[in-house]
C-alpha cells in the first residue's frame, strides 16, 4: 500500500496560523474568475490522466473481455505451445489453449476482486479509523487494539488458511477475505490524522456552533481526509490485485476461474520458462505491472489534486519546468518576468 505520509505533514502545515502570510489576498482572489470551466480540473493533471486511461482500458476489457475473446480460454486445440501468430496473438499453452483469450477473460476476475476488496477495506478502515480518532477514550483503545491485531497478522498465510477452509472459493469470497485482512493499515493512518484534525480550530468552531457529531465528522473532518482515503483505496486495490494473483499463482482458490494469476500458475507448473514459452507469462506479467502503474499514477494525481496548495503546482508542472520554477517551502522561486515601468 502506498500512502504518502507527506499528505499528513502537509495537512499539519496548513494548520499553523499565520506562520506564513495567509493573507486575505488569496481568499479575495479566488472568486469566480472568468467563465472558464473549472469542473474537470482533476483531468488536467497529466499523471492522473495517464493512470485513468490505463485503468479505463482494463475496466473496458473487464466488461467486454469475455465477448471479444476469440476462443474459449479453456478449450483445447491441436496448436500446442505455439508462439504468437495471427491466429493466436499471445501464443498457446501446452494444451493448445489461447493465452490472449485467457488474459481477456481473466481481466474481469482481477478487476472485480480488486475493487470489491478495495471498497470494502476502505469502508471498514474509514469507519474504524475515524471513529477511533474522533471518539477517543475507551472506544479508541478498543478499536486501536483491534486494528493493531489485524496489522500484525501475517496477511497472506491468513488468506490462504481462510480460503482453504471455505467450501467454495469464488472471486468475491477472496475479495472479502482480502478486505478483512487488509483494512487495518488505512484505519491507523486515518485515526492519526483524525486525532490531529479533531483539535483544530475549525472543528472546535463547528462544535461551538452546535453542529451534530455526525455532521462534524462528515462535513468537517472527512473532506480533509479525502486524499488519504482516496490514496488508501487505490493502494488497497493494488494490494488486493496482487494478493489475488499471488493466491491463484500458488494454486489456492478456484483454478477453473480464469484470471492473470491462474495463467501464471499454469505457466509455472508447466515449466513455461524452461521450455522457452515466454509468451505464456510475459503478457500476464505486463498486465499486472501496467495495472499497478496506473493505480500508482492515479494515487500521485489524487495527492497533487486534493491538496489545494499542491494543486496549482501539479496542474502546471510542465510550464513550471519550462519557466525554471521549482516550488519549495522556504525558498520562494524568483523569475524575472514582470515588466518594470516605475523609476
Amino acid at each position, binding site marked *: 500500500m502506498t500512502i504518502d505520509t507527506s499528505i499528513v505533514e502537509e495537512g499539519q502545515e496548513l494548520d*499553523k*496560523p*499565520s*506562520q*506564513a*502570510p495567509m*493573507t*486575505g*489576498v*488569496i*481568499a*479575495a*482572489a479566488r*472568486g469566480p*474568475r*472568468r467563465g472558464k470551466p473549472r469542473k474537470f480540473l482533476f483531468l488536467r493533471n497529466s499523471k492522473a490522466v495517464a493512470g485513468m486511461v490505463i485503468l479505463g482500458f482494463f475496466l473496458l476489457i473487464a466488461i467486454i473481455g469475455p465477448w471479444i475473446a476469440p476462443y474459449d480460454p479453456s478449450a483445447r486445440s491441436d496448436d500446442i505451445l505455439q508462439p504468437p501468430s495471427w491466429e493466436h496473438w499471445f501464443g498457446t499453452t501446452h494444451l493448445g489453449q489461447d493465452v490472449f483469450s485467457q488474459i481477456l477473460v481473466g481481466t474481469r476476475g482481477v478487476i472485480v476482486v480488486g475493487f470489491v476488496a478495495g471498497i470494502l477495506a476502505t469502508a471498514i478502515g474509514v469507519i474504524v479509523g475515524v471513529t477511533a480518532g474522533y471518539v477517543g477514550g475507551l472506544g479508541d483503545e478498543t478499536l486501536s487494539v483491534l486494528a493493531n491485531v489485524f496489522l500484525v497478522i501475517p496477511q497472506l498465510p491468513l488468506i490462504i488458511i481462510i480460503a482453504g477452509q471455505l467450501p467454495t472459493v469464488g472471486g468475491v469470497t477472496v475479495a472479502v477475505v482480502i478486505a478483512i485482512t487488509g483494512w487495518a493499515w488505512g484505519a491507523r493512518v486515518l485515526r492519526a490524522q483524525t486525532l490531529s484534525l479533531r483539535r483544530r480550530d475549525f472543528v472546535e468552531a463547528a462544535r461551538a456552533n452546535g453542529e451534530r457529531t455526525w455532521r462534524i465528522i462528515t462535513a468537517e473532518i472527512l473532506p480533509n481526509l479525502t486524499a488519504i482515503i482516496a490514496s488508501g483505496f487505490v493502494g488497497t486495490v493494488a494490494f488486493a490485485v496482487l494478493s489475488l494473483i499471488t493466491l491463484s499463482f500458488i494454486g489456492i482458490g478456484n483454478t477453473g476461474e480464469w484470471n492473470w494469476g491462474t495463467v501464471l500458475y499454469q505457466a509455472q507448473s508447466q515449466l513455461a520458462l524452461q521450455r522457452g514459452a515466454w509468451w505464456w507469462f510475459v503478457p500476464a506479467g505486463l498486465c499486472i505491472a501496467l495495472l499497478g502503474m496506473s493505480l500508482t499514477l492515479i494515487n500521485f494525481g489524487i495527492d497533487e489534486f486534493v491538496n489545494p*496548495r*499542491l494543486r*496549482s*503546482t501539479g*496542474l*502546471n508542472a510542465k*510550464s*513550471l519546468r519550462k519557466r525554471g*520554477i521549482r*516550488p*519549495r*517551502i*522556504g*525558498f*520562494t*522561486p*524568483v*523569475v*524575472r*518576468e*514582470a*515588466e*518594470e*515601468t*516605475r*523609476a
Partner: protein
Amino acid sequence: MTIASPIGHPQRLAPASDPVLEIKNLSVDYGYDDDPVHVLRQVSLTLGRGEVLGLAGESGCGKSTLAYAATRLLPPPGLITGGEVLFTDRSGVKTDLLRLNDTQLRASRWQDMAIVFQGAMNSLNPVYRIGRQIADGIRAHEPKTSQKEALERAAELLDLVGIAPDRLRSYPHELSGGMRQRVMIAMALALDPQVLIMDEPTTALDVVMQRQIVEQIAELRDRLGFSVIFITHDVSLLIEIADRIAIMYAGEIVEDAAALDVYNKPRHPYSSALLHSFPPLRGPRRELIGIPGSPPDLSRLGAGCPFADRCAFAFDACSKVNPELVFPNVPGDDPRRSVACLRHDPAAVRAVGEEPMPVPAELSLT
C-alpha cells in the same frame, strides 16, 4: 483650502542617507497557472539603518506578503516575478537577496535579517527546552560554538528581553504568551541581525503586554542599533513605536512618511480614512467614520487607482491612471515623504487629458 502650484514638483523622494534594506520594484504573483494574481506590483521601500518602519493597512493588502517576499519565505504558490532586495551589511557591501543561491541565502537568514512570527506559541517547539532552541539557532550559523557557550549566549539574550536566565530550562508550555513572544524576540536577536521583521508580534497579546513588548523593542533598538520592519493592523501602536510608516493598499504602498506626519497630516485619502477608524485619546470628540466597502479583488484590478471606489475624493482621472508615489502637493511638507494619489499629482492627470483637482483640505493639513 490650499491650492499648491503644480510646478517645481520633485517626482521621487531623496533616498534615506544610510539604507540597510532597499526593496526596489518588487513584484509578487500568487498562482503558477497562466492567470496568476499580481499581489505586489513593483513595490519599492527603503529601510534606513536603525530605523523602525511600520507597515500598516487592512487585511489582504500585502503587508506580510511584502515582508515574506523580501526574505524569500513565501510558500508555494507564491512567486517573485521581479525586482531587487538589496541588503547592505555593516561594511557597506550590498547583496541582492533575490540573487543568492540556497546556501548563501540560508547563511544570510537570521544572521542579517531575523523574523519574529505572529504566533509565538507555534514558533517554539513544544518538546525542547527554550535554551536549547536558542542555542540551536546560534550553532546552526556558528558551528564552532560549543553548546555551553551557546547556552551562555542564550542566557544573556533572555536577560536582554527581561526574562530570568534560569528560564533556559523551561519548556515553552511553562511560559506565558508574553514571555514566549519575548523568547522569540531573544531568539531573533541571537545572531545580532541588522534587520528584524516583526509580523504582528503583539496581536495575540493583551494591551499591557503589548506595551511592554513594544517598549522592549524600542529600548533594544536603541541599545543594539538594528532596524525593524513592524507589520500590524494597529495604526495607533505604530505611531508610538515607528519612526516612519508606510501605508499599504491593494498590494501597493500608497503613503510613506514620518510617523507623526502620517498621524497629524495624512496626505492619502486611505491613510486619512484609516486614522479616522479609531478614536484619538486626546482632542475633541469626533465621529468615527471607518472606510466603506472592502479592498478590491486583486485578480481583477482595472487601470485606475485601486482605492477609487471607496475614496471620497475620487474624480474622473482616478479611473484612468494608477497613481505613483510622488511628493505631496502641499507646500512645506517633509521632502522625504511621498504619496500615491492623483490629487497630489497634477502632471499625471494632465497626461491623460483630464483637468487636475485641488488637494482637499482634509489631505492638506499643516
